[in-house]
C-alpha cells in the first residue's frame, strides 16, 4: 500500500515538474471532492486567449509494463468522473480562464534511468 502511494506521489511530482518545464503554472494538486475522487494536477497553460487554458491532468504512474502502458489504465468511466470533478473544481474556485481541457499524463518509472513521460492533450474531446 505504502509503496503504491509513494509511486503515485512520485509520478505526480514528476508530472507537475514536467508541466512547469512546459511553462504552465500549477494551480492545485490532489484536490478531493468527497467520494467522487481526486484531481491529480490542475495547471494553467498560457494561451490561446489572454487568460489561458485551465488543464485538469490525470496522472498514471507505473513501475513497469507488466500491466500495460500507464495510459491504458484510464477508462471511460474515469474520464467521466474527471469531467464531473473539473466542474466541481471550477465551481469551488474563483479562477478565470478562456478554456478548459482534460489531459492524461503517463509516467513510466525506471530504476536506473530517467522516467518516460507520455502526455496526451484533450483526452475527452
Amino acid at each position, binding site marked *: 500500500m505504502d509503496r503504491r502511494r509513494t509511486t503515485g506521489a512520485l509520478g505526480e511530482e514528476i508530472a507537475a515538474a514536467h508541466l512547469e518545464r512546459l511553462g504552465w503554472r500549477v494551480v492545485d494538486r490532489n484536490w478531493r471532492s468527497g467520494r467522487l475522487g481526486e484531481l491529480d494536477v490542475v495547471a494553467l497553460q498560457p494561451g490561446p486567449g489572454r487568460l489561458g487554458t485551465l488543464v485538469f491532468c490525470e496522472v498514471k504512474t507505473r513501475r513497469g509494463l507488466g500491466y*500495460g*502502458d500507464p*495510459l*491504458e489504465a484510464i477508462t471511460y468511466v474515469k474520464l467521466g468522473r474527471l469531467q464531473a470533478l473539473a466542474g466541481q473544481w471550477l465551481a469551488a474556485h474563483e479562477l478565470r480562464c478562456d478554456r478548459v481541457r482534460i489531459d492524461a499524463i503517463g509516467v513510466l518509472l525506471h530504476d536506473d534511468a530517467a522516467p518516460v513521460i*507520455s502526455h496526451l492533450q484533450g*483526452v475527452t474531446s
Partner: protein
Amino acid sequence: MIVGKARSVALVGLEGTVIEVEAAIGGGLPRTVLVGLPDTSLNEARERCKAAVASTGLEWPKQLVTVNLTPATLPKTGSHYDLGITAAVLAAGEQIATDLLEDTVLMGELGLDGRVRRCRGVLPALLAAVKAGYTRAVVPAEQVSEALLVGGLTIWGVASLAELVEVLKGNPVLDRRLPPAEPRPTPEDPDLRDVVGHAEARWVLEVAAAGRHHLFLHGAPGVGKTMLAERLPSILPDLTPAQALEVTAIHSLAGANVGGGLIRRPPYSAPHHTASLISLVGGGPKASQPGSLSLSHYGVLFLDEATEFAPSLIEALRTPLESGSIHIGRSGAQVRYPARFQLVLSANPCPCGGYGVASRQCTCRPDVVRRYQSRLSGPILDRIDLHHHVRPLTKSLLKSQSPGEASADVAVRVAEARERQARRLGGTRWATNGEVSGPWLRRQLPLPDGLGIVDDAVRQGRLSARGVDKVLRVAWTLADLAGVDRPTASHLRTALALRRGEELGAVA
C-alpha cells in the same frame, strides 16, 4: 496520422467480397477500436491479435488504434480477419513491409502464441478473390492444399505471424503443402454388396439413382430401410468438376477439412429427427453456416423415421425441392445457399410398425394409424416419384443368399442411364428425369405406347393427374436403364406398379 492497409474477404453465405482492412494510429488514449460492422466473434479478434503480436516479439501501438473494415456497411463475422487486422496495424506502425499488402488477400485466425490457425470458408473466399482480380493470397499453412483448389492464385501458407512477416518482406517460405498423397481416412463406404436379398428394393434404388427421383421407403422396423438408403450415394455418378467445386466450397464454409482435394462423390447427410430448423436450412451469426440441406447439395438427404420429424421441418423442404436453393433472411444478411439434394424418406407404416406388413399383426387403433400417416403433407409427397414398400426377408432367403451385386457394377448402369437423359434433356434446364416438369414431359417427348393402362388407372380413380406425370417420369427412367429410346407398355406397367408402395402406405 499513419494508415496501414491490408485485404481480406467477407463472406455472406457463399458470396465473398474482398474487403479492405485499414488501421490508423494516434489521437487518443491507448485503445483499440474495431469498426465496420463486426459481430461479437470478430470483436474478439482485437485481443487475439494483440496477444499474438506480443508473443511474436513485435509491438502493438500504445496509442489509439482504429481498425476499419470497408465497405463498412457489409456485416462481417468470423475469425479469419485476424491476419488482415494484424497486418494492417503492423503496417501502420511501420513494423512490416507493405509493398505486397495492397494486392494480397489474407485469411487466417491467430492463436495467442502467434500461431496461424485454420479457418472456415477459405475456398469460397479465394474464389471471390480470383473473381475480383487478385493474384496472391496468404492462408493458414494447414489449408494450403484447400487453397490450391482455386486456380490462378499464388498461395503462401503461413504457420505463424512471424512467417507472415517474412512472406511480406518477400522472403521465400517453406512449401507448406501437406503431402497430398495422404489418402482420405474414410471408413469403408457402405456398399450394396452388403445387402442380402431385397432384390426388388435394390432395383428401386437403382431406378431412383438413375433418374434422380426422390424416394420414399416404407416398411416394418428393422427390414433394412436405413441400410438401403445409406447405399444410394455409392451408386450415384461422380460430381462434375463444377458441381464438385460448389460442393467443396459449401463444406469448406461449414468448417469441414477439405484439404484432401475436391469432393468428387455425392455427399450424404442424414439429420436426426430431433434436428432444429436452423441446423437443416442453415443459419448462425449472419446466416454464415450452411445447414444439412445444403451439405447434401448434389447428394442425398436421408430423413430416417420421417414421420417423427416436426411438420415445420418437413415443410421447410418444400422450397428447396422446388428451387434447388434456400434463401435465408436475417437482419443485415440475405444469404442464398444451394440445396439441390435427392430426398430419401423412410418411415414405418404405423407406430407399432405392423400395419400392412404381411407377417405381422398391427396393434394400433385405426385413427392412430391414419394420424401417423398424415404427418407427411401432400405437397411433400407430391414431389416424391418413387414409393417402395420394403418387405421383410424370409428365413430361407437369409440362408441361401449369395452376396449381392456390388455398388460399382450398379453405378455403371446408372451412369449409362444418366448419359441417355443428358442427351435427351440437353438444352433444357434439367439434367435428369426426376426434375423434368410434367407438361414438358407430356408435350415435348414422344408418348409411350400402351397408355391404355394409365388411362384405365385414371378412370378407376387409382391415379391422379399428377400421378400420371410421376408414372411417366419413372417410365422414362426405366427406358433409359433398359437402353431404349422410348418407354414401352411394359415400362409403364412397371412404373404403375412402383406406385403400389404409395397405396400400401395409404398416402397421397
